[in-house]
C-alpha cells in the first residue's frame, strides 16, 4: 500500500523540473523554453483549468490536487494600523476525472478565509467533438480577462490578487451554464475561442454596502447556481491568439441584463445591462523577464434615480513584471528560482464627471507592489511583497495612503 502511494504521488512529490526546467514554464503557460526546447505545446490562459498538478491513484480515472495559500501582513493607513494579521486565504481542492479519452470532468472546491466562504468554483464536464469544438457545461469560470481562469495562487508572485481582476471583474467569477471552446494550432501560432451562456449578475451590483457600483457584490447571490435572476442569460466570449516567442493576447467580453425588469408578467423597469470587456496579454522578453497584464472596462446601466456615486463606467488593470535573478540549485533544491517582481495597478471605479460641476469623478486606486519570490520548486512559491496604495475618494480629495508588508506562501499539493 505504501509502495502504491509513493508510486502514485510521483507528480507532486518529485521535482519534475530537475532535469527539465521547461516543466516550470509549461506549468505557467510561459514559453521561455521554446527557443531551446523541442516543440512544446503552446499553452494559453484558458488552459489553466486543467494545467495543474494532479495526483492519480493507480489506474483510477480520478485525479486529485489542490493548492493552499497563507500569509501574514502588516498594513498601515495614514498612520493607523490594525497590527499584524495572519491569514489563511484559501485552500482549494481539485478533483478531475477522465471519463473517456475525450470526456473529462473537473471540479474546484474552494475554502476562503478558513471556512468563511466555501464555494464550488468550477464543476464542469468537457466533451471533445473536435479540437476546434468542445462542449463544456456545469459551473464554469467565465472567460473574462486572464486572471479569472488562471488564478491559482502558486502561479503568482504576489500575495494579493490584482485589484481590477477582483473588484471590477469579480474573480473568481463562475456561473452555471453551457458553452463551447476550441483551439487551432498552425506552426508557431495557436488561436482559441470560448463562448458560454450562463446565469449572470443581479441588482446587488448597484445595491450594496460598498456605496459604489461593485460587481463582486453579486457573488453573494447564491441562487445564481439555481436560477437566473431575471431569466436572461449572460453571454461570455473570449478569443486568444498566441505566437511562439512573441506572446499571447486575449480579448473578451461578458454581458447581460442585471436587473429584475419584470415579475409575474408585469414590467418593473427597463432591461439594464452590464457589459465587461477585457484585454489581456503576456509575453517573455529575451531577458527571461515575464510581462503579464490585463485591462478591463465595465459599463453598467445605473438608473438615473441613483446617485452618481454609483459609476456608470469603470476601468482598471494591472501589469506584472517578473524577472528571475537566480535559477539554479539553491539549498539543495535543484531548480530553485528567485524572482524579483513588480506589480503596478490602477482602478477607476467611476469614470465620468459630476453633473453639478463638470469636474471629474474620482473614486480610484493606484497601487505599486514590489516583491521578491522564491520558488524551491515550480509548484511552491514563498513570497514577500511590499504594497503602497493610494485611494482617492469620489471627490478627488487628498488620497488615503495604505502601505505594508506581506509575507506568505502558496503551494500546490
Amino acid at each position: 500500500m505504501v509502495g502504491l502511494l509513493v508510486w502514485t504521488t510521483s507528480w507532486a512529490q518529485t521535482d519534475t523540473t530537475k532535469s527539465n526546467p521547461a516543466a516550470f514554464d509549461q506549468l505557467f503557460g510561459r514559453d521561455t523554453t521554446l527557443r531551446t526546447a523541442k516543440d512544446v505545446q503552446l499553452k494559453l490562459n484558458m488552459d489553466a483549468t486543467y494545467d495543474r498538478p494532479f495526483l492519480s491513484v493507480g489506474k483510477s480515472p480520478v485525479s486529485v490536487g489542490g493548492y493552499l495559500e497563507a500569509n501574514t501582513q502588516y498594513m498601515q493607513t495614514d498612520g493607523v494600523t490594525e497590527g499584524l494579521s495572519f491569514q489563511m486565504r484559501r485552500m482549494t481542492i481539485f478533483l478531475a476525472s477522465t471519463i473517456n479519452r475525450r470526456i473529462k470532468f473537473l471540479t474546484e472546491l474552494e475554502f476562503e478565509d478558513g471556512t468563511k466562504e466555501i464555494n464550488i468554483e468550477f464543476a464542469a464536464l468537457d466533451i471533445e467533438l473536435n479540437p476546434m469544438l468542445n462542449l463544456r457545461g456545469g459551473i464554469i469560470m467565465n472567460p473574462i480577462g486572464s486572471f479569472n481562469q488562471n488564478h491559482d495562487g502558486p502561479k503568482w508572485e504576489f500575495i494579493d490578487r490584482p485589484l481590477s481582476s477582483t473588484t471590477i471583474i469579480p474573480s473568481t467569477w463562475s456561473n452555471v451554464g453551457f458553452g463551447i471552446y476550441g483551439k487551432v494550432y498552425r506552426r508557431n501560432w495557436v488561436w482559441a475561442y470560448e463562448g458560454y451562456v450562463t446565469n449572470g449578475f443581479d441588482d446587488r451590483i448597484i445595491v450594496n454596502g460598498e456605496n459604489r457600483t461593485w460587481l463582486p457584490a453579486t457573488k453573494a447571490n447564491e441562487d445564481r447556481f439555481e436560477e437566473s435572476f431575471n431569466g436572461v442569460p449572460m453571454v461570455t466570449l473570449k478569443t486568444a491568439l498566441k505566437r511562439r516567442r512573441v506572446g499571447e493576447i486575449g480579448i473578451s467580453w461578458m454581458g447581460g441584463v442585471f436587473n429584475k425588469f419584470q415579475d409575474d408578467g408585469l414590467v418593473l423597469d427597463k432591461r439594464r445591462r452590464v457589459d465587461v470587456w477585457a484585454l489581456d496579454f503576456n509575453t517573455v522578453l529575451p531577458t527571461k523577464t515575464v510581462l503579464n497584464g490585463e485591462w478591463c472596462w465595465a459599463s453598467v446601466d445605473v438608473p438615473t434615480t441613483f446617485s452618481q456615486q454609483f459609476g456608470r463606467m469603470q476601468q482598471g488593470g494591472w501589469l506584472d513584471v517578473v524577472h528571475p535573478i537566480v535559477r539554479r540549485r539553491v539549498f539543495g533544491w535543484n531548480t530553485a528560482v528567485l524572482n524579483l517582481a513588480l506589480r503596478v495597478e490602477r482602478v477607476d471605479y467611476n469614470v465620468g464627471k459630476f453633473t453639478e460641476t463638470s469636474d471629474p469623478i474620482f473614486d480610484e486606486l493606484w497601487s505599486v507592489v514590489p516583491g521578491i519570490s522564491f520558488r524551491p520548486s515550480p509548484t511552491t512559491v514563498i513570497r514577500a511583497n511590499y504594497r503602497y496604495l493610494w485611494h482617492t475618494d469620489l471627490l478627488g480629495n487628498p488620497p488615503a495612503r495604505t502601505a505594508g508588508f506581506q509575507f506568505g506562501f502558496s503551494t500546490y499539493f
Partner: protein
Amino acid sequence: MKTISVLLILSSLFWLVSACDALLPGTPADDQLLDGPIGDLTPEQNAQFLRGDVAFNNEVFTAATGLGPTFVATSCGSCHAGDGKGHPFTTLTRFGQIDETGNTFMQMGGPQLQNRAIGGHSPETIPAGATFSRFTPPANTGLGLLGALSDEQILANADPDDKDSDGISGVPNLIDAPAYFQPQWFHKPQTTVGHTPRYVGRFGKKAAAVDLQHQTVNAYKQDMGITSPFDPVDPINYAVSGQAGDGVPDPEVPGSRVNDVVFYLRTLRVPVQRNAADANVIAGKQLFVQVGCAKCHTPEWTTPQSDVAVLSKKTFAPYTDLLLHDMGKGLDDGYTEGTAKTAEWRTPPLWGLGLSKNSQGGQEYLLHDGRARSVDEAIRLHAGEAAKTTERYIQLGADDRSKLLQFLNSL
C-alpha cells in the same frame, strides 16, 4: 556560498524590518485633520466614539436595510468626506417655507427634496410654486463645543432691535423642539405670545436644529430615509410613493445607533489653526476684528459645565455667534426654517475654513449653497447686515486683504 546566501537573506530581512517605519505612511499633520476625537476620552467614551464613527462613516444603507423609499444619500459619510465640508454633488435642497409661519408643502414632500429613490419608487421633484434653497453639507468639526454652550450665552449676543446701532442685529431661530427633545440645564424655553415654548436653534444653515440629536435624527430621516425610535416614520411623499414605505420594519436603526452617532459628533475634534505665529496671519486677525467681521463671527467662547468632561469649561475659537443675520437680497432664496426670515442665515463657524479644499475635491464651494468659489468671493457676497463690513473689506488695500485672507485660511 551557502553561508553568504544565508547572511545576505538575513541582512536583507534585517534591513527590511528596520526600514518598516519609513516605508509606512504616517499620520497626516495634526493641523490638517478634521476627524478624530477631541482631547482625551475615557476608554468607554472611546468605544462609543468608535461605534459612532463606524455608523457615520462606514454604514451604507441599501433598500434591504431601510434606505428610502426616497433619499438623498446612502450614508452619513457620503456628504461629509473626512468630516469636512460637502461638495455641490452632495448638496441637498429644501423647499416650501416662505416665511416664519411654517411650511405649506409638507404634504408634497417638504421640507427636503429626496431626489433619489429605491427601486419601485420615483424620486421627488420640487412642487410647482415652492421656493427652495440648496444647502452644502457643513463640516462636522467641534460641534460638541457649540452644543455645550448655554442658550444664555448665545442670547447675550442677540440684538434684535439693533440697540447699539451698529447695523447688526442677530436673532435666535426659535424652534418647536421635537417630542423626543430632552432639554438640558442650559436650554431655556423661550415663550412668545400665542405659542408654546420654543428653543434656541443652533445647528444647520438656518439654525433649525436645537441640538445634535435633533440634527442627527433629521439627517437619518430626511437624507437617507432611515427611521429611528425618535422618528419612526419613513419620508413618504404621496405624490411619488403612494402610501408605500420601503418595506423594511421601522425603526430601521436602534436608538443606541443614533446616540452613538450623536456622541461621535459631539466629541469630534476641533480644527487646529495653522501658521498662527505668522506675522501676516496675526495682522490678518487684527484686520478681521477691525473691519467688523468679528461682530458676527465671534472669535472665542468658553463652555460651561458639560456632562462630557472634555467639553467642560473649554475655551475655543469657532468664529460664530450661532445667531441669524439678514444677509441681503443676493443670498435670499425665498426659503426659510423656524422663525428665521428668508434672508436670514446663521453665522457659520469659520474654523476649518482653510481645510475646505481637502474635503471639496481640491476646490472651494463656500456660503450656504457653495456658490462662492473662494473666501474672497464669499466675503464680497455678504450684504444686508454685513454690507458695511463688506465695504470696509473691499476698501482695504490689496496687501491688507491678503493678510486677512491668510488669517481666514489659517483657521
